[in-house]
């Protein structure tokens, strides 16, 4: 009975993970700005990679599953950190965010 449940769960997790990875790449290609691209891709990619690795961990042995879960936790910690560091570097070096709405002009921020 557990094999049925784990297989169905793995298939659902795998399909949703591939969906999240694809949506992240669509955001990386289509969006107009550095910060919006960063925002879209890193979160979708973290979620998609975690889901695919958990789907694989349900179908493997104990040691391999433990390693895959460790990789998942590592990606969930480090990928938002990397996104934060990239965004800070882009802001300090002076990449302007896109000004599409009028409320963006009110508070200019302290960009150097």
């Amino acid at each position, binding site marked *: 009975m557990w094999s049925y449940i784990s297989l169905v769960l793995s298939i659902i997790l795998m399909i949703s993970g591939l969906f999240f990875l694809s949506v992240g790449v669509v955001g990386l290609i289509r969006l107009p700005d550095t910060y919006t691209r960063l925002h879209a891709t890193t979160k979708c990619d973290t979620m998609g990679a975690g889901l695919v690795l958990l789907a694989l961990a349900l179908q493997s042995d104990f040691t*391999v599953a433990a390693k895959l879960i460790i990789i998942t936790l590592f990606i969930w910690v480090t990928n938002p950190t990397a996104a934060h560091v990239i965004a800070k570097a882009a802001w300090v070096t002076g990449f302007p965010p896109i000004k599409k709405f009028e409320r963006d002009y009110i508070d200019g921020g302290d960009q150097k």
Partner: protein
Amino acid sequence: MEALEILKLIFDTLKFYGTIIVMILVFFCLGRAIVGPGAPDRVTAINIIGTKTVVIIALLSLIYGYDYYTDIAMVYALMAFIATIGVAKYMEKGALE
């Protein structure tokens, strides 16, 4: 055919075609890394390529049945994170002190 075998067949097919889909996505990210107007876009694309490579290595580990590929995936995740942090710090401060 039994239901369990059908589910296993679906999962194997999903692993195979999922690897191909992620490889195609890596090529799209590479296009953004080539085109991208600034350095942060390129660093973002390279970071995403690193994460997707970890996923590809883990999928290949289960497709071929080589258990030690998961170790390679772990080391690759570490290396991609260190490379991203290094390039971002160099971009921000102009040097790696």
